[in-house]
């Protein structure tokens, strides 16, 4: 009876939903791939310093005249400039708020001291951690998955509803004997169908290209994705419940989504925000979704462990849906 199928005939939407996250993951994955630790560019102004600093493999040393060196430092082409001080001392000029500058300072100092004959009193060796599951890409893929769930649900719901209202298609539909709940149901079903594709593509891409692990059960992951997607759909429905133009709807949606993109830990951990706002961030649906996805994929957590996040998502679902039903305008 419900033949109300959403058709996949919007090439732009397809791009944003499927291709964009993959491009993003690929781009970021390459940018943060497992390369040897950064080789930092530094400069000196004397041949002696250059020589001793060249012993350090993690530094790339250039010898410049002092004007050019100052210039390079100011424009960020080099992370650190080593100049001779008085009495054979060395002066390091760098920006101490820049992590690269601080790293360069430590490396350069070690090279200078060793060249001058310092012997380390304790022998130390390095063990590199490059297991799948602890790299940046492993952190990123669940984040992108969460972002994708949010984006496609809110956009998918919001734009189509508002567009149909703008074209008076909603009005035309309620002028038929169509039961109204079928209209909602049709969105729900097409959303679930799309969800399988979206999640499959992002996870498949992560697993094939970057060997991102899924340590928890796939069923649990599916439940998290479904609940997340439903919550975001309800949010999308709420945002679209009144808006009459695409512009108004898109402004609303961006206003809601942008803070979450930034605060919810898609690209970097949400822990970096001050403690005061942490409860607020934790209450955002995207934070909950991403935390749950990361817990499942990276730590193999089961649903019981994700109960707080699931609770947050369910609360958003219920509140938004109830509000949307109350506010929704068919015309």
């Amino acid at each position, binding site marked *: 009876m419900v033949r109300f199928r959403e*058709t996949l*005939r919007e090439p732009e939407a397809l791009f944003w939903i499927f291709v964009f996250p993959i491009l993003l993951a690929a781009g970021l994955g390459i940018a943060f791939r497992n390369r040897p630790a950064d080789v930092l560019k530094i400069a000196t102004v004397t041949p002696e310093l250059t020589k001793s600093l060249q012993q350090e493999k993690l530094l790339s040393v250039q010898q410049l005249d002092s004007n050019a060196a100052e210039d390079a430092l100011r424009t960020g082409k080099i992370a650190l400039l080593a100049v001779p001080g008085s009495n054979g001392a060395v002066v390091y000029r760098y920006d101490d708020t820049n992590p690269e500058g601080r790293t360069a300072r430590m490396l350069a100092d070690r090279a200078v001291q060793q060249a001058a004959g310092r012997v380390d009193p304790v022998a130390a060796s390095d063990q590199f951690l490059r297991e799948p599951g602890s790299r940046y890409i492993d952190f990123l893929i669940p984040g992108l998955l969460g972002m994708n769930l949010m984006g496609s649900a809110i956009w998918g719901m919001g734009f189509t509803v508002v567009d*149909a209202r703008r074209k008076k*298609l909603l009005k035309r539909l309620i*002028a038929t*004997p169509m039961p109204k709940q079928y209209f909602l149901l049709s969105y729900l079903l097409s959303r679930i169908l799309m969800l399988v594709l979206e999640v499959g593509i992002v996870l498949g891409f992560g697993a094939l290209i970057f060997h991102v692990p899924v340590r928890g059960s796939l069923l649990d992951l599916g439940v998290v994705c479904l609940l997340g997607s439903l919550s975001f759909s309800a949010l999308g429905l709420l945002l679209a419940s009144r808006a009459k133009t695409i512009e108004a709807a898109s402004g609303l949606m961006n206003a809601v989504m942008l803070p979450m993109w930034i605060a919810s830990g898609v690209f970097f951990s949400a822990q970096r925000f001050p403690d005061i706002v942490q409860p607020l961030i934790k209450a955002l649906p995207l934070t909950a979704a991403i935390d749950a996805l990361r817990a499942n994929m990276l730590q193999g957590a089961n649903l019981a462990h994700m109960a707080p996040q699931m609770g947050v998502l369910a609360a958003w679902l219920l509140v938004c849906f109830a509000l949307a039903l109350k506010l929704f305008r068919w015309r």
Partner: protein
Amino acid sequence: MLGSSPKAALRVSGLRKAYQDVVAVSGLDLEVRAGECFGLLGPNGAGKTTTVEICEGLTAPDSGDVELLGLHWNSDAQQLRQRLGIQLQDTQLSEKLTVFETLRLFRSFFEKGPGANEAIELVQLEEKKNSRVGNLSGGQKQRLALACALVGDPDFLFLDEPTTGLDPQARRQLWDLIEQFKLSGRTILLTTHYMDEAERLCERVAIMDNGKQIALGTPRELIASICAEHLVAFSAGSNSNALDIPALRRIEGVRDVRTENGAVELQVTELHLAVPALLAELNRQNIPLTELSTHSATLEDVFVALTGRHLRDE
């Protein structure tokens, strides 16, 4: 037909609806007989669409009563929906669906009615069956909208400005289709601001202005009601101020004279007497004549006679 009176398919009484500070419909009574094509005429903003949407159950009236096919919206909505065919003013159907898919979708909402293929034949869109809606012309889209209104095999058809914005050829094509449906005995309520459309399609018309009905009858009755069968228009050019209007009124066969920006319009019953007399009178007043024309009175002239305004004055 069900209901108290077997003849009325739609009965509206004391209908009133206001939006914020604008009164769209103020105290409207209407009766549409079963099997007739009833026209609701009026300029934009007259309250036609609001009236129709109240009858369609899409808008709740502030007060007043609507009885449709003997049923009422607050008690029999689901039953009514099954029996109505509705075409709304400028609905845009989903552009990514094909004609066939759109009709199959709409057909799925109704219990009975022609199949999607049959509906496509009814509106002569066979060639476009698998085209996407976005690629149709304006006339084809309107025909598709009409087909969507027909898939439920409705007893009552609402057509809200079905030909607005179409080119003359597409309008005539749509009129032909609507005339065919009239033959099948359906009751039709049509709104339009094209008087020629109402004259051609409707058995009876009600003229609306400012939310009220100002005239009701067959197109012929309405035209006869202004007591003039012909209109004579001429321009007096720069001499219009010198024109002796009362003298024109005294000409035999002239019912009324109106002037507008130097153009003069006479309502005339006997053209063959009035025109020679008019020419003689203008000659006597020594006014050179430019742009003389005559036409048979239309509903447009009825509207002008009733309101002093033209229909498409915005």
